[in-house]
Structure formats: structure tokens, C-alpha cells
């Protein structure tokens, strides 16, 4: 097919189709609407289902049902809608069902606005819902990467029998970039012997459940979940390093902001300031390894986010006081521009050098 | 002749069967089952009509009734 120009939101949809996802349940919300619009048209073309739920609460529980029945299934929303899904996500995590949730974050809190934002980082990685659970959280920064990471999200979800999340911001959803699309692959989904599909042909009943009334039982479940998360922390950390060689000032940024940060690094390097960038691709598990090893040689960190400072805590936890960790952020959809971030970086550099 | 059996280990002694038996032939026995409860029991099986009322109202699947099918069933 060659390259085509695609909107980020549509790429989330096409990525799902290419990952073999044939079931989508969602509820409209800006700035992710092109995603359901795309799938409402696209799913019937591939024999799949687009179903508009009566709410985000219903949508996430439809996802729970479809996942229980063995489907590769996705939902998507934006910040307030994702807040409404927290109980359901916690259930899916405890019942150990694979599913993918997309959050195209917008300005908050409250109704806020529809401008791009990254202010649901904590919600995504620390567990916005109740209980000790974690989701692999992936943060693409280009339209092409959306396609790739949506596919990865489905794989991780199946591998760990755990919901996975892909996050973007309104800009990533709205922008268009070329993507390389081959023919739609014929995805062979892994067999799901645990799915509730009716007992026919089986001599056991399958049960999907998150109730364990005896603490001893529920603790076992929690230990199993924690073991999974530890396994993820060993196996699944992903990040991109950009011009880190000899970097004294290390920027850390994810998603669209990482692209701004790259431009900043280029600008700084052009002025002979040895800057580099670590771009977490998985927000959970957080790639602390490159941060820790950068902390050994770099002099200072600058975390850039479109929020009031969230991932910066994970960076601080990784740096463990070894180096100063600075933060630059704008909230509410105000863009952190190349010029602003460059200025912030230079200020730090002035003190450092 | 109809026959009625009570699985006393499942019985919770709720007395619903007692309250519906048209022949008043069910009581709670003096015995105590493993739930620590007095289970229902039949006093005079020969009076049982096999109507099945006890079966229908029993919430705990205690009762079995064997009977002949009605002629025009």
C-alpha cells in the first residue's frame, strides 16, 4: 500500500484492526472522536463490531465481557471518560483479562478543556482505580509509532492477561503523518482456554471473577499479580535514547513532548550544550535503567511534561538524589514550546557549567 | 404411590415446605444436621399425594419427589 497520510486517532483504530482486534466498545468524547468515527466505518469492513455504549462505565464493562468471552477488544476515551472507567479497569486487572484502553488526554481537572495534555500520567501508572494493580502503559510519539504500539499493547495484554493502556494527547490524536501500512495481516490470536465461551467440548466450567472473599485467597491473587508486574519490570521497559553520548544535561519527556524535547536537544547541541534525551516508551514499567545509568555521568536532569509535574516523581525515584532533577511543564493544553524548554534548559545549564 | 425424600444435610430448616404441604406431613426433626440445624422430615409418608409443593418451594434443593404421571399429562 505504500505510505499514506493518517490522523493519529485513526491510526489508533487502524492499529487495532491490524492487531486483529475486531471488537470496539466506546463512548464519544473530544479529542478522540476520530477514533470511533474511523472504527464505526472500518469495523464492518473487516467483519468486526463497533458498538457505541451508553457511557464509559458501560463501555469498559462491555470490554470486560468481550474479553471474558475471548475477544481481542479495545475501548478509548479521554480524561474524564477514563476516570469513569477506573472501577472497570481495576476489575479487568483483577480478573486477569486482556484488553486495551486508549486515553487521548485532555486538559483537566474537571471538564477542563479539550486541549492536549499529559496530566493523567499518575492515573495511568500509579493506579487510578482501587487496589494494587498495574497496567503496561505505552506512549507513542509519532503516528507510525501509534500503529506499532497499539499492536504491542494487544500482545502485552495477552501475554500477561492484563489490561494495557496506550496514551496520547490531543495533538497526537489530531495530527497527520505518513504511515507505512502493509496489507492487513491475518492475525492468529492465541488460544484462550480460560475464556467463558460455554462448556461445550470442555469438561470444566470456566469462571471469570474478581471476588475472593477469603483474605488468604485474595492475597494469593495479589501475589500472582505482583509477580506479573515484577516480570514486566524485568522484561518490558522500553525507551528511546537520543544523543545521550556525553550528555551533561539529560531531558526526559514522553509522547509528543518528547518530540519538542528532541528539537530542544538539537538546538542545545548546536550551541555546544551537551544535552540528550531519554524518552520513556513504556510509562509503566518506567524505564529507570537508562535514567540510573545517565545519573552516573550526567550532571542534571530536566523533565518536561504537559502537566504540573508527574513523571518527574518516577525520574526522582530512579535518580535517588544523585543529581538534581528539574521540571518544566505547562498545564491545561498550553504547549511547552521549543523556545520555552530551550530557555529552561539553558537556565539550568548556566548554573551547571 | 408417590415417594418423597429429604436430603437432610442440605436442609436449613426454613419450614417453607412445612407451610405448603397440603397434607401437613412435614415437620422439623429433633435431629441436628451438620449445619447445626433441625432438618425437615416426613411424619407419615403414606399420606403424601406427590403434589410436589414441598419440592417447588424448597430453596435448597433438599426434596425429591417420585410420582406417577397424571393420565392426560
Amino acid at each position, binding site marked *: 500500500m505504500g*505510505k499514506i*497520510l493518517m490522523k493519529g486517532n485513526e491510526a489508533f483504530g487502524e492499529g487495532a484492526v491490524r492487531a486483529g482486534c475486531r471488537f470496539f466498545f466506546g463512548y464519544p468524547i*473530544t*479529542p478522540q472522536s476520530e477514533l470511533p468515527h474511523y472504527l464505526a466505518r472500518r469495523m464492518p469492513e473487516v467483519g468486526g463490531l463497533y458498538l457505541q455504549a451508553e457511557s464509559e462505565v458501560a463501555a469498559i464493562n462491555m470490554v470486560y465481557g468481550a474479553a471474558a468471552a475471548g475477544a481481542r477488544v479495545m475501548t478509548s476515551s479521554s480524561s474524564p471518560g477514563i476516570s469513569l472507567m477506573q472501577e472497570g479497569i481495576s476489575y479487568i486487572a483483577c480478573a486477569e483479562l486482556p484488553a486495551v484502553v486508549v486515553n487521548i488526554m485532555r486538559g483537566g481537572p474537571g471538564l477542563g*478543556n*479539550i486541549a492536549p495534555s499529559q496530566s493523567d500520567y499518575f492515573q495511568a501508572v500509579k493506579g487510578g482505580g482501587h487496589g494494587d494493580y498495574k497496567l503496561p502503559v505505552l506512549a507513542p510519539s509519532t503516528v507510525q509509532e501509534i500503529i506499532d504500539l497499539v499492536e504491542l499493547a494487544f500482545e502485552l495484554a495477552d501475554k500477561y492477561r492484563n489490561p494495557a493502556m496506550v496514551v496520547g494527547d*490531543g*495533538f497526537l490524536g*489530531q*495530527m*497527520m*503523518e*505518513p504511515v507505512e501500512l502493509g496489507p492487513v495481516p491475518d492475525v492468529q490470536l492465541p488460544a484462550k482456554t480460560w475464556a467463558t465461551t460455554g462448556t461445550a467440548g470442555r469438561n470444566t466450567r470456566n469462571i471469570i471473577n474478581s471476588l475472593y472473599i477469603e483474605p488468604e485467597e485474595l492475597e494469593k491473587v495479589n501475589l500472582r499479580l505482583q509477580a506479573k508486574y515484577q516480570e514486566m519490570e524485568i522484561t518490558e521497559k522500553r525507551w528511546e535514547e537520543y544523543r545521550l553520548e556525553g550528555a551533561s544535561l539529560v531531558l526526559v519527556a514522553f509522547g*509528543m513532548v518528547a*518530540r*519538542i524535547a*528532541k*528539537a530542544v536537544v*538539537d538546538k542545545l547541541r548546536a550551541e555546544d550544550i551537551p544535552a540528550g534525551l531519554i524518552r520513556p516508551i513504556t510509562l509503566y514499567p518506567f524505564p529507570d535503567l537508562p535514567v540510573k545509568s545517565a545519573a552516573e555521568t550526567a550532571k542534571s536532569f530536566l523533565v518536561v511534561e504537559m502537566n504540573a509535574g508527574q513523571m518527574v516523581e518516577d525520574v526522582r525515584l530512579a535518580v535517588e538524589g544523585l543529581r538534581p532533577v528539574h521540571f518544566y511543564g505547562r498545564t491545561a493544553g498550553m*504547549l511547552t*514550546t*521549543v*523556545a520555552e524548554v530551550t530557555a529552561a534548559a539553558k537556565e539550568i545549564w548556566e548554573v551547571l557549567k | 404411590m408417590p415417594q418423597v425424600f429429604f436430603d437432610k444435610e442440605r436442609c436449613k430448616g426454613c419450614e417453607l415446605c412445612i407451610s405448603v404441604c397440603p397434607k401437613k406431613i412435614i415437620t422439623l426433626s429433633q435431629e441436628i444436621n451438620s449445619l447445626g440445624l433441625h432438618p425437615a422430615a416426613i411424619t407419615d409418608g403414606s399420606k403424601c399425594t406427590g403434589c410436589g409443593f414441598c419440592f417447588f418451594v424448597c430453596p435448597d434443593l433438599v426434596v425429591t419427589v417420585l410420582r406417577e404421571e397424571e393420565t392426560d399429562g
Partner: protein
Amino acid sequence: MLEEVLLAGFGGQGILSTGMVLAYAAMAEGLHVAWIPSYGPEMRGGTANCGVTVSDTPISSPFVAEPTTLIAMNQPSLEKFETAVVPGGLLLYNASLVSRGVTRYDLRTLAIKANEEAEKIGNVRVATNVMLGAFLEITGVVSLASAVKALEKVLPAHRHKLIPANQRALEAGAWVAREAGMNITGRTTV
């Protein structure tokens, strides 16, 4: 080569799709490209603008905060974005809907009565493509032919009958730019 074009105007002027025409054309010519709209409140109407980045190397930031070219389709857009253009950058504005004119004299500026040009073609909605035609003529970022081909991609099938009008708009813009001379450094009204 790195061109960061900001197209700005109000909804209904075809700002977003003209930006897409540029993006598609550049992609077809093998360039790196990114198109990003400023998306408005959850409702109809209001302003519309989009940034198109075209480059021969991978694009890091797709945001057009400091455009190399501004295409301003009305007065408010001109006022809002004029100051953002990089020094020495290019400013094309729609003189049909701009009364007050520009305040920066360090830009290469071309004022085009795009609505009038478009009405000559018979469809006021092609005005923004008039501007694009001029832009292409001046910068040569991509060929006019590529832009014409891109129309097929951008316009939905049931609107393909509008391709000729849009093509004429591109050509009209190019003609205006040619007429105005390629190395415009001051203010010129055609």
C-alpha cells in the same frame, strides 16, 4: 530543507484541507511531513488553523510555533500570528479579508485578494488554494503538479468534480506570485 507553514483563517475557508494538500504533495515527493491542526472548542465554527512541516530529514517537533511561512486568510489570523513568523520568513495574506495590513517589515510579504481570485473561478471556497499556489510558486517546496495530484487524495470521492476549480485556484495563485516577482521583500498588493 525545513519549511514550517502555518495556515490560519476561519472555519469553512478550507484551511485544514489546503494544509493537507501541501502535506500529501510533499509526502508524494518523498519528503518528511507532518500536519497538525489547532483543534477548537467542542463545537462548530470559530477559527481554524493548521501547521504543516515539510523537511528532508525526520521531523522532531511537528508544532509550528515559529512558522517560516504564514498564510493568513483573515484579519484576526494575521494579527494573531504575524509576530510569530521567523525573521526573514514569508507572509502571504488574504487581502480580501484583511483591511489593516501588516506591521512587520522584516518578512517577505505578499498580499493576495484570494476571495476575488476565487470568485473569478466561480467558487469562493477555493481561496485558500489560491494562497497555496502562490506559496508553491515562491518557495518551490513541492511542484504544483504534485499539489494537483494531492487534491484527489484530500477531496472525498463525491467532491472530485471540484478538482478542476481547485487546480485553477492553485494556478491562479502561482500566477499572482509570478506576476509579483519571485523575490518579494516589501509589501506588494496585486
